[in-house]
């Protein structure tokens, strides 16, 4: 995904080390997915 974004001219791209699991494991705040804009979960 990062490579695709770079191909489109975006240069300031950083993947989150450890992904979502690392965020959750650190105990940081999360939000209800139903509030998130974007494709529905089943898409």
């Amino acid at each position, binding site marked *: 995904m990062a490579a695709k*974004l770079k191909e489109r001219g*975006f240069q300031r791209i*950083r993947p989150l080390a*450890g992904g*979502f699991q690392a965020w*959750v494991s650190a105990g*940081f705040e*999360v939000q209800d997915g139903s509030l*998130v804009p974007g494709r529905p979960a*089943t898409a």
Partner: protein
Amino acid sequence: MDQLVDLISRYGLLFVFVNVLLEQAGLPIPALPTLVLAGALAADGKLSAPLILVVAVAASFIADYPWYLAGRRLGYRALRTVCRVSVSPESCVRQTEGVFERYGLLSLVVAKFIPGYSTVAPALAGILGTPPLSFILYNAAGAAVWAGSAIAAGVIFHRVVDRVVVALDGLGAWGLALLALGLVLYLLVRWARLVQFQRVLRIARISVEELRRLLEEGHNPLILDVRTSLSYRYDPRTIPGAIRFHLDDLDEKLAGIPREQEIILYCT
């Protein structure tokens, strides 16, 4: 070389068992040549083809089932552990999920033929709550198709295999050296692919602490949740402010966003 064939004839089933077990556990020791050779020996009456198949399926199951159980108990942490020993964890998880998402349990049947997927598929099946009996059936079917096709190739082409063995035998010590060279070349190709893949993926990452600090300080990075639908269903929560994002939406979602915008991607 005759000694090697004698060794495989005598301890063939044990040899097949250990080789399949090690390969399925993730070590880069190809089991297909052994299965083909064992199939050829079966055609020559030196081994039993059905027994080879049973042993290969059993070894495969013994290697896979612990990962399935780990997936059920540890969730995505199990998959990350498997992927950590292969390539970039995020990439590995995404690719695995993509295959499972597309083919479901049937992917277990063809998993053995897909490099890399074979080791991670059992963990993913566990994470997604596949019932044990379904896992055992589909996994066994996959192992049987995979090992069966190699054994069948050995049986069908046993004369060719015999000629290769005789030719290698004629070379004496050079024959063994040729085999060793083949194995080394195989390992080198795998290593080169891994290095190339990691180079493509090598990119500066942001830690969770740094991202949190950015958010607290009022910076406004664009956070894209690029998890697959499978992992999103598994845990539908997101990082605050994140936008669900799919590769198909790339151009639509990024229209109008300045190219200097900082973007944070996160996967499972």
